């Protein structure tokens, strides 16, 4: 079936000939056409301004420090060479193998959980998505601190009489770093696979089984259909791990195991900071992302994964036997105990101790201080508003980007560039990305034309959105690439405008992944630290700045109480959104990708 041209079909063209110009402009279809014409250029302009320019600004520094008044050379390779030597080279090597291992571990744990929760009668499966969101919304430093608190010398484990130094050595080292980053990658895998499974109707499994395929043969049939989601999960897992700072600055740092992001932070944190060296490391990290990108492109080249159509059938859940149900439930529970229980214990116990953890006497003094001291609650409210606004903006941009990325038949240089740009932006450490915003948007040129964006809330929100969009697009691309164009074409054939066709034929099918992408952005922005640190508007600190301020000074307990409260607020927001979707979304929207008990 041929697709009608974007922004207008035969019906519209006829209407255009018959209607005066002023009426066409006022008519909603005219607005749709205008949006269709302006939308893509506007989208590309936003990408250029808010992702490409800051990325290029921060990366160009390594080659031309003079460009931004950070050195005397207009062109030099000194900093790139420096990045390949000594401790910096070791840190980059560590990051590469650790991130690869973490992405694989994330897939190994996340895929079975997604399948069990989405396709079987796993006991307690209703709680899996909510708990997975909780894993996702925890900033990565929180589980790291929780584990440290448990296993460090004289930590809780030893005080409880468990003299297990081998556990301390295992966790406080490379294994522990891979383990934590792997756990961090699980939600990304889960989201990507769940979104893809949701669109994979029962008819594919039925067809295989009808033709006599065994369970393993059926799995072999389905596995390639999930390839976009699997590759997306691996790519996100790798990119998120290699750009993670929370684990690098806590567990890895305290284990004397240096990762590239910490080394990069040290280059900027030194005085005077070496932005060019940080930039050189940023270039190498971005180059590292070429690995999953190349693998992903090679695996998906020339194939179509569009199997989500209006004819997909609802999935029938596989009935687990009693033994299998117990084993599966135990495995999934163990994951949550490790991913949530340990950091939860660490954070909550630290917030309930009033004297830096010297004794085990529990007190609410930190929570009382949080409620009564000025300036402690305001940052949480502020971040709530920031995260809500940014999530809406990012989901729109992320969907457009995912749609462009999924157009494999019309894959052009621009979409390939988009693909690389988005993955590169994921790999670029946030602190370098934020510094790029200062370099790009604090140039004297902007002040001369009256644009003073640096240290305004507007620039902070733009940076949040730009930093979240790549991950968002990656999460959505799995679901969007499954969409058959026949869905929209059918609506257009029946006279719907482009916008109506999208809203009535496409939105219902992808509503669930969109809600997930919204929540993902919300959680990422709510406790975001590195961008906030460099770009927040003076006098308006977001939650992460306030928590960091308390933790690094003399108010450790108050900081932990603030972190616990922040996670509680984020969890409440997640539950509210998921509950609202369940209550307000039409039953048909929820049924697509849903499952019934078999």
């Amino acid at each position, binding site marked *: 079936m041929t697709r009608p041209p974007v922004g207008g079909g035969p019906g519209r063209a006829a209407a255009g000939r018959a209607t005066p110009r002023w009426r066409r402009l006022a008519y909603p279809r005219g607005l749709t056409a205008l949006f269709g*014409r302006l939308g893509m250029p506007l989208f590309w302009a936003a990408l250029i301004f808010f992702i490409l320019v800051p990325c290029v600004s921060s990366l160009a520094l390594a080659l031309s420090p003079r460009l931004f008044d950070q050195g005397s050379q207009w062109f030099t390779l000194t900093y790139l060479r420096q990045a390949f030597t000594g401790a910096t080279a070791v840190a980059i090597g560590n990051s590469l193998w650790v991130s690869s291992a973490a992405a694989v571990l994330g897939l190994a744990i996340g895929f079975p959980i997604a399948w069990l929760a989405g396709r079987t009668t796993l006991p307690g499966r209703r709680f899996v998505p909510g708990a997975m969101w909780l894993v996702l919304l925890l900033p990565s430093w929180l589980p790291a601190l929780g584990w440290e608190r448990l296993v460090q010398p004289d930590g809780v484990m030893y005080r409880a009489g468990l003299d297990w130094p081998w556990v301390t050595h295992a966790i406080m080292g490379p294994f522990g770093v891979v383990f934590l980053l792997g756990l961090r990658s699980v939600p990304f895998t889960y989201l990507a696979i769940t979104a893809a499974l949701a669109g994979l109707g029962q008819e594919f499994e039925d067809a295989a089984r009808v033709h006599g395929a065994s369970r393993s043969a059926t799995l072999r049939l389905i596995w390639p259909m999930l390839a976009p989601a699997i590759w997306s999960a691996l790519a996100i897992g790798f990119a998120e791990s290699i750009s993670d700072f929370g684990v690098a600055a806590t567990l890895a740092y305290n284990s004397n195991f240096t990762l590239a992001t910490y080394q990069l932070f040290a280059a900027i944190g030194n005085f005077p900071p070496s932005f060019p060296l940080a930039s050189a490391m940023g270039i190498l990290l971005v180059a590292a992302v070429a690995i999953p990108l190349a693998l992903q492109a090679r695996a998906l080249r020339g194939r179509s994964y569009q199997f989500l159509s209006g004819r997909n059938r609802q999935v029938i859940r596989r009935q687990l036997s009693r033994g299998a149900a117990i084993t599966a439930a135990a495995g999934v529970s163990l994951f949550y105990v490790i991913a949530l229980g340990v950091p939860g214990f660490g954070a909550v116990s630290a917030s309930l101790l009033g004297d830096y953890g010297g004794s085990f006497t529990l007190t609410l003094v930190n929570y009382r201080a949080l409620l009564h001291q000025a300036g402690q609650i305001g940052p949480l409210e502020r971040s709530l508003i920031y995260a809500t606004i940014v999530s809406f903006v990012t989901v729109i941009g992320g969907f457009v980007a995912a749609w462009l990325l999924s157009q494999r038949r019309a894959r052009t240089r621009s979409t390939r560039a988009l693909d690389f740009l988005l993955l590169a932006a994921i790999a670029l450490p946030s602190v370098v990305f934020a510094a790029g915003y200062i370099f790009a948007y604090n140039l004297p040129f902007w002040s001369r034309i009256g644009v003073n964006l*640096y240290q305004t809330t*507007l620039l902070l929100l733009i940076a949040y959105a730009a930093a979240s969009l790549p991950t968002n697009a990656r999460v959505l691309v799995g679901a969007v690439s499954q969409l058959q164009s026949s869905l929209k074409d059918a609506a257009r054939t029946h006279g719907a405008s482009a916008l109506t066709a999208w809203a009535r034929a496409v939105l219902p099918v992808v509503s669930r992944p969109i809600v997930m992408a919204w929540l993902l952005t919300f959680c990422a922005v709510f406790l975001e630290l590195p961008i906030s640190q460099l770009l927040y508007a003076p006098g308006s600190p977001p939650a992460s700045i306030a928590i960091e301020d308390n933790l690094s000074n003399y108010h450790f307990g108050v900081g932990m109480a603030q972190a616990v409260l922040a996670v509680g607020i984020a969890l409440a927001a997640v539950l509210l959104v998921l509950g609202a979707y369940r209550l307000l979304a039409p039953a048909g929207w929820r049924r697509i990708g849903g499952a019934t008990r078999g």
Partner: protein
Amino acid sequence: MKRTSRRHKLLLIPGIISAGAIALAGCSSASSGASGSSSPSAKSSAKTTLVIYSAQGYDHAAAAAFQKATGIPVKLDDNSTGPLLTQIEASRNNPSWGLLWVDGATAFAGLDQQGLLLKGFEPKASWNSLGTQSLPSDKSYTPTGVTLMAALVYNKSKVKNPPASWQDLLQSQWKGAVGMNDPSQSGPTYPFIAGMMNYLGGVSAGESYYSKLKANGLIIHPTNGPTLQALTSGQIKLALVQSSAGIGAVLGDKSLTVKYLDPVTLLPSAIGIDAKAPPAEQAEAKKFIEWVLSPAGQHVMQTGDPTGDSLYYPVLQGTSPLPALPSLASVKTQTINPYTWGPREATINTWFDSNIVR
């Protein structure tokens, strides 16, 4: 047909970019006006907004009191020293700060040597000996108080015989029991490292000392808070932290106590003025410094963060330290030349990071 359509779309991009720039200009002007920022239009009004970059615990109280006392609008960027210095360095070709108020003369010396500080301003003040020792010769920054680096903090019920000298820390008795901060994350820690090198006779002697300390199991945590937390949780027995942090911890946990080993390095809290700020903002920054050094300003500094940065030693005659502060009468203090040690900061921190932290 396709070509035309594509060209039209391409032609639209510069137009949209221009429109975007104008829209951004509108947004930023609107937000500037609302928040009273230091945009050019705001600066032309009667009173320019003074932009304060500060890492002091009492800065919110000080900014509010100053604004109330003088009517000068203030915008405060309260953050840790590291991010503030990063912001200043990243925005050096178009700075947006008016004054910087952080701990550590070496950072100010570094900024001064890059030409980023206004020189030659000395407020009218009656300095005591700590103040006189902390004044730079080119008057590019002004001390507002002094803390010490490093104070030895320990649990007096667990440590009956604390070390009496810096060399004692190398004894096997303290193997794996000493903790300090990482200079790449904790602003006040570099002056401590430089101070030890100064006291021991040079960089190599200092490197040798820290290498021995590491061989004796030195444990590094990022900043004062985590190092003190390691002390109270029992991971270490002796914490080397900033005096205000140590005394603040003692106020919250009576089993802890603070001791100074000879010599201890002075760590001035200081204010520097942006050399590129508009003259009107520089004039307001000078007024702010004079107000901070007035009795009203000192009162706010001593009450604004009673368990943290308010625990400083005053640099003015007639202002007494808070009662919780141990007397300095029997303590030998030293001042390091920030113009000698400041330029070495990046090199020494990198060495420390590679050889001691790892």
